[in-house]
């Protein structure tokens, strides 16, 4: 199993940033998501975040909302998310789950951490779990040996950055802009400053997400961050493809472009 630590070590040795790709489980289908994520890994993604589809994704923009809605319509369950993690982890990528808090809360924190570890998952990103409420999840994750990634944002004060990074293992997720997920014309100007403010507090790598969708943007972010996170742009390729084969070709192409970007 590939851990986050080994991924970032390898990237550092190659003098480049790591490439992190996101896809929700169950989109376009359960097997389709495994195939797409595997294609992304083959074309250069080092880390895959598997989204756990949730009914009220209040941090997500229209593209991810659309994909998640379809995944739920497909009847995607947590067992399917675990199966997806298992399938993707086989490809050699460090595989995380990105999820809003309530599904874990309902499933049971210890049970979720245990099942995720058993599936080969290396950790979670929990965008709406604040450090104040994260105690039980950090304990459960530590027991199961998986990482906990939390977010900092351009609005975060020094004090908050310190509190959040203290809770992060694996890496710190720096949101590049104030807003929801989705590809943008340009990466937020605040991102570089946020990474700079986060570094002194962080014992782990700092990755940047939100709004990254092209090789040029990946290269721009890779200049100052340890990892580049891309989600909506992959989903957009799948949504726009006329069929699954074309969709796989398109995500592979994008992953290759981004992988080239993080190596510039």
């Amino acid at each position, binding site marked *: 199993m590939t851990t986050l630590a080994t991924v970032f070590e390898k990237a550092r040795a190659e003098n480049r940033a790591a490439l992190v790709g996101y896809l929700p489980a169950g989109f376009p289908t359960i097997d389709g998501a495994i195939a797409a994520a595997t294609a992304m890994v083959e074309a250069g993604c080092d880390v895959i975040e598997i989204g756990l589809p949730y009914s009220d994704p*209040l941090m997500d923009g229209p593209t991810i909302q659309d994909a998640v809605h379809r995944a*739920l319509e497909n009847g995607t369950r947590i067992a399917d998310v675990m199966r997806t993690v298992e399938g993707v982890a086989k490809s050699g990528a460090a595989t995380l789950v990105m999820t809003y808090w309530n599904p874990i809360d309902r499933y049971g924190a210890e049970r979720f951490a245990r099942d995720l570890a058993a599936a080969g998952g290396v950790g979670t990103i929990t965008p709406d779990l604040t450090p104040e*409420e994260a105690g039980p999840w950090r304990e459960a994750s530590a027991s199961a040996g998986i990482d906990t990634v939390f977010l900092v944002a351009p*609005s975060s*004060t020094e004090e908050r950055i310190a509190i959040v990074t203290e809770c992060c293992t694996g890496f710190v997720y720096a949101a590049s802009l104030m807003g*929801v997920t989705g590809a943008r014309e340009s990466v937020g100007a605040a991102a570089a400053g946020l990474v700079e403010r986060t570094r002194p507090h962080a014992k782990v790598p700092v990755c940047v997400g939100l709004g990254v969708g092209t090789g040029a943007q990946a290269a721009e972010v890779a200049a100052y961050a340890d990892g580049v996170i891309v989600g909506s742009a992959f989903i957009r390729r799948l949504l726009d493809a006329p069929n699954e084969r074309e969709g796989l070709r398109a995500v592979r192409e994008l992953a290759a472009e981004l992988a080239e970007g993080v190596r510039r």
Partner: protein
Amino acid sequence: MSISEGTLITPADFTGAGSGGDVSERGKFGVFGGRYVPEALIPALDEVAAEYEKARTDLAFIREFDHLLRTYAGRPTTITEVPRFAEQAGGARILLKREDLTHTGAHKINNVLGQALLTKRLGKSRVIAETGAGQHGVATATAAALMGLECVIYMGAVDCERQALNVARMKLLGARVVPVTNGSQTLKDAINEAFRDWVTNVDSTHYLFGTVAGPYPFPGIVRDFARIIGVEARRQVLELTGELPDAVCAAVGGGSNAIGIMHAFIEDADVQLHGYEAGGRGAETGEHALTLTQGSIGVLHGSRTYVLQDDEGQTIESHSISAGLDYPGVGPEHAWLKDSGRATYHGITDAEAMDAFALLARTEGIIPAIESSHALAGALKLGRDLGPDATILVNLSGRGDKDMGTAMKYFNL
């Protein structure tokens, strides 16, 4: 700042005595409440909390709020005894707190005026809000017009249709109304969309949250601004009857009108507190909004509370004939009042609510909001249980003008 000086509220009215939810406890009501939001919003929530803490002890702020309540909102609202209606309630004495008589026609104006003043103190120029029945949207658009704030209202597309009159009112008041077409296209999805706007525009924008749900500090702030309902009603009932009521009844969606009237009575141990949720087509049909009575503990819209959810934590869509109660979550303080046993919550079906709606109209000449009709239906049942010596205070949280489209269809008028 005493009543004799002609003011309605005092600094003491903002102390929120009773069930916690203050800064020192980070908005916790027992195990409920807290904050489950993207980190990006934490600074804004901290800013709102800090400014509110200053405002609520600032006499100038309290005077300004008080002035608006008296000269703009039409407070104090009266209480009305409804003996002909009460004949159907086993002869118990029923008193209505007439929030329907406030400017804009529902209790929502109280919270909105308070938060609009807070918005100005925060130095922000734009407010956004979610709305279900449209009453909170109308109230927010009203306060924005009054104070010269830009206003955007998020409203589920389904609700836009069933509350078309309120959409027109908001537009006339200068607000932009954004129909939300994802998910169930009702209040829950309007809240999601408002949060998305807020995280994007937080520098210029205050999210004028409309109910006692959401992340800390909203449950406490909205409660404190709505608390005037119960503060007034408690005095009025004492003046009229010489005693406290035996029970206080209110409808519960998110729970703001209910907390508003209940809170001043929490320490009066002999006063029963009853909340009535929307039973929709009936608990057994699964088409209801029985969050407290049928739901389970989870996290929705930033706080830990009771939620209608499936076994994997996916929110279940609620149903109610009344848009204002059609919500699968509820304020965390109600969750706490339920679990502590201080308040009791019940379901009222669409049919029971519509019967009470028509009964109050025909016996007393008052057309209530369908939301409030759930509390009226509850009071009819409670009166039969408590007997003819009981006095029951009901929060008539809003008027039914906005519901005439629904009533025309339902009663074939």
